[in-house]
């Protein structure tokens, strides 16, 4: 093993030779990792294991929000030994999901893990005896308590997952969410598919409501591995697409919140407002969700001066109607009564569980990749994060409202910076030569929060591992906590206020 134990730091997105990532003894790995994570400005954006001959290399990516870089460190173990390692979750809770994933996929047992249950019952899990349909939910023995099970199929047109409530009368003592029903083996398909375009298509189908966020993370990763630079113009165009996605989902989710508190005018108007935005995205690239927009190294759908003019009109009309409606909703006592002080997650809890994105910013945890690890257009025109304090449904509503307005302002600035006179066609690249024996990380801030894609290449420059992390992996815990001591009838409104991804989690 390497004596070199200096942690290597990279930017977002970046690729480095695999050999440059320090491989440490586990005691050293633990000390370094916990040392980093002790600081609130550091958080783990990905931690996973991949095969290196007969070894498994556990690699952690720790993002430093104050310096804007990502620390990489790793530990190697022999696959055959099925070794046990000390769980670091007991010292730093947000690692729970990563350690559970490593146990599920590779059979490494982490001793002292508080609850090492499967993440998603993936088809290639090591322990095939565990089955999703008879998962033993956490239970409390008491004559006073009862359990309510919901799912996997829910009452609405939404994705499957199981929610198990332990209630005392109407009050929720504990909520456990078990997912995995959407698992379709997408990470393995990245390796099975050999063409860049096929992988690009997979990336935009990880989570349809975050098509731009995920495909941008993929494109950045591939461009970094292929040493490809794209123009400033394209960077800005991509970020405009990302912000349009954010606006569309935020306004749609505010509509859904209104549905749940039976405020029909709000529900209708916000829903109609969303249509205007996604129809613009369709005018741009032919798909309402922005699929086919982001391609590696270029784009088929250049943002034209005509589109700019159209977008300015769309945004002006949208903003006027949105502000009128949201201001009225904000003041409405019947709405406020249902949003206010419902589903509070405290700043301390958010730090404890490692919330990211919206779920962090609504409770005073400043975590926004656009600000701290700027990518695409945000490195051209900076973005300043919005942070709210209260951590309840109202804060989640308000954060969406504020972020949406800020995204519109950001887009307007970005539109001014677009240089159409020097714009040249920038067709997507068909195939790339990836850096051999490399490790790459790419982060984007989607509307839910940070997306992290990691790739490892072998000595021939072929993809050897592909790892996706959707922000929902962290944030489902926040939804669980938000329900404690609430009436069970408050579940739908809390759920909508987060709108977390099932498919992004289940992969």
């Amino acid at each position, binding site marked *: 093993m390497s004596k070199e134990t200096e942690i290597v730091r990279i930017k977002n997105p970046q690729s480095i030779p695999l050999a440059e990532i320090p491989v440490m003894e586990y005691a050293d790995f633990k000390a370094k990792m916990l040392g980093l994570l002790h600081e609130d400005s550091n958080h783990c954006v990905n931690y996973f294991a991949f095969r290196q001959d007969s070894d498994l290399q556990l690699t952690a990516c720790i993002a430093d929000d104050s310096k804007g870089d990502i620390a990489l460190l790793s530990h190697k173990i022999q696959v055959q030994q099925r070794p046990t390692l000390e769980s670091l979750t007991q010292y730093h809770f947000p690692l729970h999901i990563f350690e559970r994933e490593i146990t599920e996929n590779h059979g490494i047992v982490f001793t002292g893990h508080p609850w090492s249950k499967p993440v998603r*019952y*993936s*088809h*290639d899990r090591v322990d095939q005896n565990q089955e*999703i349909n008879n998962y033993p939910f956490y239970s409390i023995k008491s004559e006073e308590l009862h359990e309510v099970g919901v799912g*996997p*199929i829910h009452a*609405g*047109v*939404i*994705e*499957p997952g199981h929610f198990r409530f332990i209630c005392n009368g109407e009050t929720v003592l504990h909520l456990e969410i078990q997912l*995995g*029903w*959407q*698992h*379709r*083996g*997408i990470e*393995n*398909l990245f390796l*099975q*598919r050999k*063409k860049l*375009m*096929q992988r*690009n*298509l997979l990336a935009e*189908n*990880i*989570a*349809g*409501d975050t*098509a731009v966020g995920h495909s941008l993370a993929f494109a950045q990763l591939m461009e970094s591995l292929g040493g490809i630079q794209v123009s400033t113009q394209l960077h800005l165009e991509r970020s405009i697409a990302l912000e349009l996605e954010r606006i569309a989902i935020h306004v749609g989710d505010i509509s859904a919140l209104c549905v749940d508190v039976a405020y029909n*005018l709000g529900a*209708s*108007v916000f*829903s*109609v407002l969303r*249509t205007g935005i996604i129809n613009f995205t*369709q*005018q741009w*690239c*032919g*798909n*309402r*969700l922005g*699929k*086919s927009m982001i391609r590696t190294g270029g784009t*088929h*759908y250049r943002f034209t001066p005509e589109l700019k003019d159209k977008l300015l009109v769309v945004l002006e009309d949208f903003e*006027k*109607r949105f502000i*009128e*409606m949201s201001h*009225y909703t904000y003041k409405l006592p019947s709405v406020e009564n249902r949003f206010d002080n419902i589903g509070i997650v405290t700043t301390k809890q958010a730090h404890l569980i490692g919330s990211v994105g919206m779920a962090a910013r609504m409770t005073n945890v400043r975590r926004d990749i656009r600000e701290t690890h700027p990518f695409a257009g945000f490195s051209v025109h900076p973005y300043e994060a919005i942070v709210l304090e209260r951590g309840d449904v109202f804060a989640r509503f308000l954060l969406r409202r504020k972020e949406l307005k800020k995204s519109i302002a950001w887009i307007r600035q970005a539109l001014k910076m677009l240089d159409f006179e020097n714009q040249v066609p920038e067709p997507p690249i068909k195939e790339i030569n990836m850096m051999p024996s490399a490790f790459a990380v790419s982060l984007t801030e989607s509307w839910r929060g940070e997306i992290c894609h990691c790739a490892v290449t072998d000595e021939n420059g072929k993809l050897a591992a592909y790892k996706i992390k959707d922000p929902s992996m962290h944030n489902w815990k926040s939804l669980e906590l938000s329900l404690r001591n609430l009436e069970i009838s408050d579940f739908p409104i809390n759920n909508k206020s987060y709108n977390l*991804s*099932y*498919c992004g989690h*289940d992969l």
Partner: protein
Amino acid sequence: MISEIKIIAHNGKQFISDVTKAAVPAPFRGKPEITGTLVDEEALAEICPTGAIQTKPVRIDLGKCAFCGECALAFPAKIRFTNHHKISTNDRNSLIIHENDFSEIEVNPEKIKSEIRSVFNRSLKLRQVSAGGDNSAEWELGASGNPNFDMGRFGIEFVASPRHADGIVITGPISENMAEALQVCYDAVPAPKIIILCGTDAISGGLFADSPAVDRSFLEKYPIDLYIPGNPPHPLTIINGILDLVRGKKH
């Protein structure tokens, strides 16, 4: 109250009054057209990331197509995506587009189960089952009921329980983990009942057709009443498809 009336006035009428005639503007990719132009067919088939293009002669299977448009961008003289969105059908074979075939994709009245139009003509309640999809088809199914498209005006709605439903709408390639739940849900729907496959993933498995985490055995057991292609399908494709199925051409 006055403010609310103002808001209503400012937003105006948003619903599409006739969904059967509404058009979706280009560059929306609806039904593709294939010309007889000679091209390197192997190269053309090679471009398709989902293997939806077959050669000699060239055909596109919309049940497999991800509507990414890469083929048309590379071979514009051969393939063109029109903005024609009415592409739902009950006949799997008519999802295969042939060279110089510019006919419409339609619901074949002869293939409709006899009770469908008599029973579901004015009211069709559906249970949606998401099974390994990416939430985009679910999204557009939800949008079909919004104030713009307002599918509810035709008596077509999504219900909370399979016991209240007249059929199921499946989205996603059907993950192994969802196979049992899907069967349980379908069994709970009282007869007569229909099955609608919504989106490319549901129709053929799409991008995930060969994934070992997918189990499509459910579909081998029952006839499919409607295929709604798209990635995701446009709400107008969804609504017109269902209307054609339960009401026929003249709504």
